[in-house]
């Protein structure tokens, strides 16, 4: 057919017109201008904030107890060691959450009377665990389950991870379910018409589209969980928060908490950027870009 070859021929012959070149030059100037303006306004705002903060009467006192560089440096190794535990817990919990949440979401979307008990169970579970505060789940799992003497002895971080999985799966399964239900039913129909089984349709057609639809919400939950891994410290696990607590007591200075807080931000930041990038990319790929 000729439609594509025509387009290619005209593409090689085309040269931008004078008008278009002028427009491009204008756009370039505009971009340069807006970069300049935003840089300036950022500097002015930062300056104002710093001036207000440093100029306040209690600043010297606050700086000493919260922003002491020597304490920060001295406490850093211990806190980093703790953070490594947080990261391990985070990775394990994330995997656990995705798997368990997918199971829950799939159970909730099953149709037919046979599956009523499973559906009801999954619904009850998500209701319950979205209602209970994480810290209570942590206490119940962290102190209660080992008390059963049913399981082999495990480090507290293990039970903390389980508690995180139990709680966050409830949220994430709802996100998944919303995504699954947002996939147009005709997609399922088209897949089944091709002879794909229910499972294949779910894995190849529904879930990938559902995932894309809910990526921002998922990443949001992930970032929330990234902070909440710090809560395993209540069980006595020596993570970054617990390490900071120990260092704070040691130096009679709150700087280690600030250090731990900054580390958590640093940990979350790439993920936040990545989320933005990924969702922008899939959007660009799946719907032809328009200017607005």
């Amino acid at each position, binding site marked *: *057919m*000729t*439609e*594509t070859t025509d387009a290619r021929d005209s593409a090689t012959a085309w040269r931008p017109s004078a008008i278009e070149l002028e427009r491009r030059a204008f756009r370039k100037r505009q971009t340069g201008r807006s970069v300049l303006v935003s840089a300036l306004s950022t500097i002015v705002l930062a300056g104002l904030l710093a001036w207000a903060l440093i100029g306040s009467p209690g600043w010297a006192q606050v700086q000493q107890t919260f922003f002491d560089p020597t304490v920060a440096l001295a406490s850093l190794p211990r806190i980093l060691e703790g953070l490594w535990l947080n990261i391990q817990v985070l990775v394990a919990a994330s995997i656990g959450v995705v798997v368990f949440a997918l199971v829950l979401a799939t159970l909730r979307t099953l149709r037919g009377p046979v599956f009523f008990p499973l559906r009801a169970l999954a619904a009850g579970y998500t209701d319950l665990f979205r209602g209970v505060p994480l810290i209570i789940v942590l206490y119940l799992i962290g102190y209660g389950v080992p008390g059963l003497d049913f399981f082999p002895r495990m480090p507290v971080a293990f039970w903390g991870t389980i508690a995180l999985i139990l709680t966050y799966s409830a949220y994430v399964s709802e996100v998944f379910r919303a995504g699954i239900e947002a996939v*147009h039913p*005709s*997609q399922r*129909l*088209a*897949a*089944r*018409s*091709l*002879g*794909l*089984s229910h499972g*294949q349709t779910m894995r*190849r*057609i529904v879930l*990938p*589209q559902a995932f*894309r639809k809910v990526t921002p919400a998922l990443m949001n939950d992930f970032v929330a969980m990234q902070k909440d891994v710090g809560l395993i410290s209540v069980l006595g696990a020596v993570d970054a928060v617990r390490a900071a607590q120990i260092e704070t007591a040691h130096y009679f200075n709150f700087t280690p908490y600030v250090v731990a807080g900054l580390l958590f931000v640093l940990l979350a930041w790439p993920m936040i950027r990545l989320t933005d990038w990924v969702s922008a990319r899939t959007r660009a*790929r*799946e*719907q*032809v870009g328009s200017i607005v």
Partner: protein
Amino acid sequence: MSTRSASVAEPVLRLRGVRRAFGEHVVLDGIDLDVAAHEVVALVGASGSGKSTLLRTINLIERIDDGEILLRGQDVSDPRVDADDVRARIGVVFQHYNLFPHLSVLDNVTLASRLVHRVPRAEAERQGLELLASIGLADFARAFPDRLSGGQQQRAAIVRAIATGPELLLLDEVTSALDPELVGEVLALVRSLADGGTTIVMATHEMAFAREVADRVVFLDAGRIIEDAPARQFFEAPREERTREFLARFLAD
């Protein structure tokens, strides 16, 4: 008008007393229909007459309340038959939302070959590219469906439906969601499939196209077949009064 002969003894598709009701509303009221190999049958009828429902029952997407659906003599409406196997033997194209937006055009076309028929990827892709090339879409093989125009998407969907060499192709108003200038290219593809001997049952509002391409036209009204006649006879000398009324209304539009 086409002059293909349906000489194979056993029909590809045979419907016997197919009935489907939604509550009190009887949508298919005892449908009897035979479709021979290489035959092209057009289903026409007013909106709500049951054309889409009939196509969905053939593909086992819609359960039937009574009757039999025989695919090459096998009763596929028997609940003991694996519906996935039956669907893999039938190609279907709907009105819209056919392609999977998260898969490239080539992956769309090769999906069923790879997953259902277990064709190795390289082999499936070779066939898929060949098919896409045959409809002038080879350049779009790696693109995502949203890059294609509506007509190109529908043509890709049709190619996807025939990629696994189904025994029967069902088309449900494949052009009615398209802008008028895109209808022609899709109909041209259907015509070339018909000329190539594909067995087709298609619901359509395109009377001129039905007349040109179909061997037989079946007129549905309120879930019953009112008239089932060779295309030329259907349009030039319909036997039933209601067919005449239907055609008159169409010509008036």
